[in-house]
């Protein structure tokens, strides 16, 4: 592996870790948002 | 001084409970003995090799054993909820911690001293000339292990999977103890032994820092 490839790999992998972390947070937020909405709707209908 | 007298009473209780059955001490002793024997298969225990590896192995065995030994110190209060009773009976919850960690340190120290003859014979390292320094290192390290370990066992006792959780919380946190005490013991068992001031310094720093932390935060660990 040449030096430039190493530098490149380091940047790509580093960015990937942050990006994947962001994606998991965003996905969990979206799922939970939907759940809250659904529960609220059922609550309103029950009243 | 009510803190000290409370602590003394509670410490007496801890010691009486243990010395009635000696369950904890016997089990830990046999456990470490087993590990010490098993370790001998992982490298060639000649004198020179032993001097290099034995201190580290000894402390590693000790750390593992203590992570199992410290499980019970809060767990055994749970069935009859004796912890609430203790909390009501003392003015300062710090004395509960102080008593428990003193008892644990004492148990650890006792096990270490009991194992020392086996260790020195089986791994062929002479300890008699440096025994007093070794005892000091043992004391500082056992104190450190039991200070942090007692606090963490109060945490793990309230969680699921506690048997696995305590070692997981304890071992990384106690890295400084492992490094410092292994290096200090290595210095004492060297062909030209020297007093390991740096090792004992680190152990003291660890003890003081974590004792202060428990003094500040210990009461929250025991909240209902």
């Amino acid at each position: 592996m040449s030096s430039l490839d190493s530098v490149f790999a380091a940047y790509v992998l580093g960015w990937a870790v942050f990006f994947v972390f962001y994606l998991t947070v965003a996905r969990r937020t979206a799922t939970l948002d939907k759940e809250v909405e659904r529960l609220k709707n059922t609550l309103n209908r029950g009243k | 001084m009510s803190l000290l007298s409370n602590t003394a009473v509670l410490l007496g209780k801890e010691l009486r409970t243990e010395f009635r059955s000696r369950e904890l001490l016997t089990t830990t002793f046999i456990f470490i003995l087993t590990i010490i024997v098993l370790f001998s298969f992982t490298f060639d225990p000649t004198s020179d090799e032993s001097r290099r590896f034995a201190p580290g192995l000894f402390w590693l065995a000790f750390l593992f054993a203590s992570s199992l030994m410290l499980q019970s110190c809060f767990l055994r209060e749970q069935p009859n909820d004796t912890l609430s009773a203790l909390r009501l009976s003392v003015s300062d919850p710090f004395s509960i911690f102080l008593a428990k960690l003193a008892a644990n340190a004492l148990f650890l120290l006792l096990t270490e001293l009991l194992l020392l003859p086996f260790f020195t014979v089986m791994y062929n390292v002479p300890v008699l000339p440096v025994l007093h320094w070794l005892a000091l290192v043992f004391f500082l390290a056992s104190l450190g292990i039991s200070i942090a370990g007692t606090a963490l066992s109060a945490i793990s006792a309230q969680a699921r999977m506690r048997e696995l959780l305590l070692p997981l919380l304890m071992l990384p946190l106690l890295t400084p103890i492992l490094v410092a005490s292994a290096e200090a013991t290595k210095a004492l068992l060297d062909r030209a032994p020297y007093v390991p001031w740096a090792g004992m310094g680190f152990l003291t720093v660890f003890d003081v820092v974590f004792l202060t932390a428990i003094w500040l935060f210990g009461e929250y660990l025991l909240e209902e």
Partner: protein
Amino acid sequence: MGKRALAGAVVVFLMGAAAYASFYIAPEEKTMHVLQRIFYFHAATAWAGMTALFIGFVANLLYVWRREGKWDALGVACAEVGLACFTVVLITGPIWAKPAWGIYWTWDARLTSTFILWLLYVSYLLLRTLIEEPDRRALLSALFGIFAFIDVPIVFGAIRWWRTQHPAPVIMGGPGSGLDPTMSKVFFFSVFALHCLVVFLINERYRLEKLRAKFEIVRREAEAI
């Protein structure tokens, strides 16, 4: 929504600019040549990760004193983001080490202590999954977080004291030790970009944790009916 998307775009732009600067603006280093350019990303991430863990430590302290759910949420958010940063540090480190030293991993002081730090915060997050009751989880994990953070300097000190006695591969001096002015400018820009990223991620993760609390409340209401 608009504001957060904008913040995200700004962060991506800053990160891109930092990468550009470290590839094209920073001058070539004499001994390591192009390889040294990992430094701007690697070290800046470690600094930003340390900042995240420090904010988490303050949040843990505030939780223990004030007992407000927001400090618990901030505590987890910081621990997770800090852990992500140190994961990046532990990945980029060996990639740098392989061509520079010839091996991916050496039990050198900094590597080892960073790894212990990483393990401590993994246990923190693990502890949180093993306690059901929210108040107890918040309190106990905050206390463990405090213990873990005050342990970090002792771990670094102890490992550094003994492990650097061994012949360790030569690491280049940190910033300040005769670093070229352009290099240090690029480095501090990188540090700034990484801090923006960390703040952005903490904010996102914090929102998730607040949403969870809200979800619990709504769920309990629904169960009551």
